[in-house]
């Protein structure tokens, strides 16, 4: 096996990983604060992608406008879900909200299916985004490059926001101790709403990237990436954005390297392998790759 081949598998892994990372980062913004395993995150991506598709194909809107609209749509859906299904349960514990997020997910999937039919649809990005660049035999589309850069940029911006700004401070406070945050004068509802706005907009963007990668969309498309995002966020360390991104990359690279480098007889075990890697990593670092020891002592 030559190095170029290995290298190109690595690049493929990063490519896939950056899509996972993109989903995971949006996922973990909400997850970090509320510890809400938001199974509906993936479905919000679906909603956004269908919004783009219908605006472009039915109303002939330009892509960038439809993307804007899809972000708005995703935020609206995210906020409705927050208001109706998550907020009334905020004090109720993680397990309970898990049910409501699964329910929201099922609701959205079926709604999408009713509106847009269960048929898979082709999803095209404009030529200039899908154009393939050739770097010494390693091929990347413009969209791949944009995704990768976007992940890094968004990570940097969000990290800055969370570490340095008032809002970010409030977010971290809420994730640490809700009651104390209230006593500090933080409007928890605002913080959560902001988190959902960020999370849902990122869901819309990652939906776009995911659809660009798969080139087809269907009403169920969001569930598996949503689940992977959850795994990535946990693998990276709950509550750590950098961890979520790293987790996404680890999943993507593990997948592609296994698919590319292993003999074909065992490549069907790829998904299993990814989880074996995940479990091994957690055995070494039980709080995730970048996770800190949970605070508190005896």
């Amino acid at each position, binding site marked *: 096996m030559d190095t170029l081949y290995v290298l190109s598998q690595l690049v493929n892994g990063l490519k896939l990983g950056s899509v996972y990372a993109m989903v995971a980062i949006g996922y973990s913004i909400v997850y970090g604060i509320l510890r809400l395993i938001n199974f509906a995150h993936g479905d919000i991506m679906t909603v956004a992608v269908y919004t783009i598709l219908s605006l472009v194909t039915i109303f002939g809107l330009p892509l960038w406008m439809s993307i804007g609209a899809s972000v708005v749509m995703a935020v609206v859906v995210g906020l409705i879900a927050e208001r109706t299904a998550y907020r009334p349960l905020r004090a109720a514990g993680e397990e309970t909200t898990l049910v409501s997020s699964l329910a929201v997910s099922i609701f959205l999937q079926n709604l999408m299916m009713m509106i847009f039919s269960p048929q898979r649809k082709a999803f095209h990005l404009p030529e200039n985004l899908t154009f393939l660049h050739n770097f010494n035999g390693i091929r990347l589309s413009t969209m791949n490059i944009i995704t990768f850069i976007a992940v890094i940029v968004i990570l940097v911006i969000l990290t800055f926001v969370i570490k340095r700004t*008032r809002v970010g*401070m*409030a977010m*971290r*406070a809420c994730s*640490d*101790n809700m*009651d*104390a*945050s*209230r*006593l*500090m*004068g*933080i*409007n*928890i509802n605002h913080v959560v709403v902001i988190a959902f706005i960020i999370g849902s907009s990122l869901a819309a963007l990652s939906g776009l990237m995911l659809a660009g990668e798969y080139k087809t969309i269907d009403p169920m498309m969001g569930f598996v990436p949503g689940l992977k995002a959850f795994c990535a966020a946990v693998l990276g360390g709950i509550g750590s954005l950098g961890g979520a991104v790293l987790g996404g990359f680890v999943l993507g690279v593990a997948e592609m390297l296994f698919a590319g480098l292993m003999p074909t007889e065992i490549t069907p075990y790829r998904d299993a392998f990814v989880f074996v890697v995940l479990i091994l990593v957690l055995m070494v670092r039980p709080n995730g790759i970048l996770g*800190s020891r*949970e*605070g*508190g*002592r005896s």
Partner: protein
Amino acid sequence: MLEVTDLRVKYDTIRVIHGVSLNVREGELVALIGANGAGKSTILKTLSGLLKPESGEILFNGQPIGGLACHKIVQQGIVQVPEGRQIFSKMTIKENLRLGAFLEVSRKRWEQNLERVFTLFPILKERYHQVAGTMSGGEQQMLAIGRALLSNPRLLLLDEPSMGLSPLMTEQVFDVLRTLKQEGITMLLVEQNAYDALEISDRTYILETGTITLEGDSRRLINDPGVKQAYLGGV
């Protein structure tokens, strides 16, 4: 400044505050003492908005605040040092203090206040970057008090500030309360250390199982034989 009339509070179905009325005047230090489970913490939590009153009126500077969201109440300057400290255990001391001044925007004011907190509790400066959850009990209590001071309270609600502090440190904290009082900050103090509480406060309410049984000038109560018997360990 603070007017509470006929306050009732319940947890789920059990009512624990049965019509309490009390008031705190501008600049005053009022103590609230009572046995375990009398409902002192419950009253404070209701005042700061963590709990919703079942009925009754709470006026702050003439404005009703009963049942308002917690952050709205804090915005008006009512700040609590909660029972059990409620620090942000995964964040550093620095961040905890920063959060104390969440609503306080002026950088200068924050620095001034911070200086003062540091002189009070030097350990906080020493451990500025330690994760708060790993601090000792007493250190956490200092942090909780320091954090509250940073927010420029108009009315400070203190729920057992001396709990877990060494005698020396308790003394110092009470000294701080005295200074604060001189600076004109209004305070409502819940304290198990009834003697200290009576000594430092202007007026005192005594709470028994959710109702106020006695109220009056602290000087007078401190010499009241009944109070002595029940709350001062029969000294």
